[in-house]
């Protein structure tokens, strides 16, 4: 997989991600992308209920959240997390990307939406945008340092 200039937190530590998807295969693919961005997987969840408890446990910098999941869907989980943690940065990652769904996710507190199949370069740009000034990108020369 292509390597990207690492995105770091302001304190120089790797960005910590919570990956929420009912598919282990999808979670593994996202984990590989996170690694290529210089990030770290802080936790994983396969449904919305577990995502809420994992968020409380791991306090990630960013959540990558699927929408269609058993027990509790991603949009409801996002809403509940943002209700308790207003600064939570949640990016919805779903194959179901129709307008009503995107609007509903954003209205309930998600910061962005990425449609599956996920292109690493698209997710990378979204991560940088959502983290904004709370992150810095190492120069390409310093990427391996």
């Amino acid at each position, binding site marked *: *997989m292509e390597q990207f200039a690492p995105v770091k937190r302001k304190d120089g530590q790797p960005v910590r991600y919570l990956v929420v998807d*009912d*598919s*282990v*295969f*999808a979670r*593994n*693919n996202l984990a*590989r992308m996170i690694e290529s961005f210089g990030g770290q997987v802080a936790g994983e969840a396969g449904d919305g209920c577990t995502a809420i408890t994992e968020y409380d446990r791991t306090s990630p910098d960013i959540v990558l959240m699927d929408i*269609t*999941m*058993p027990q509790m869907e991603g949009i409801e989980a996002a809403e509940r997390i943002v209700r308790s943690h207003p600064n939570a940065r949640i990016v919805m990652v*779903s*194959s*179901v*990307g*129709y*307008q*009503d*769904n995107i609007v509903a996710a954003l209205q309930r507190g998600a910061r962005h939406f990425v*449609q*599956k*199949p996920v*292109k690493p370069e698209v997710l990378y740009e979204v991560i940088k945008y959502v983290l904004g000034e709370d992150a810095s990108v190492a120069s390409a020369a310093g990427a391996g340092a």
Partner: protein
Amino acid sequence: MRMELIQPFINAADAVLADSLQSPTSIGNFSMEEEGYRRRGVAALIAVSGDIEGRIIFDVDPKTAMRVASRMAGQELAESQELMCETVCELANQVIGNAITTLNDQGFHFRVHPPELHTSEHGDKSSEDTEALVMCIETCSGKVFMNVAMRYNSRRREERTAVAGQ
């Protein structure tokens, strides 16, 4: 079954498979399934409900499933039944999610349910209401079969028309 319901699935399968496998695909044979559904390999079923209801089955032989998994992961993966099932479910989820996106943006409102492994050898025989269309998508990793059986939910549509008219 009407083509306006089918075309988004064909387009989505073509686009998602080509994108995921980084290789062009071609749509092979189409057929209406007159006999009951017969599973070919690892199969995932996704149900849809709302203005349109029905189900879509994604069916891939085990060797193809492993080749697809490795290509999607960008590395050679060790063969496992669990990985094959996960791959087919996720592929189905992505193709069907993309098709549903198009149909929703065209004004049909319905939701897609999480994929389930379809383990029966045979399925229900299609009826006039829910004819099944089987299509074969040829990829660099092998053949992928998609079996689509859907119908308009006329009651839902009438209810929505009535509400809109109030």
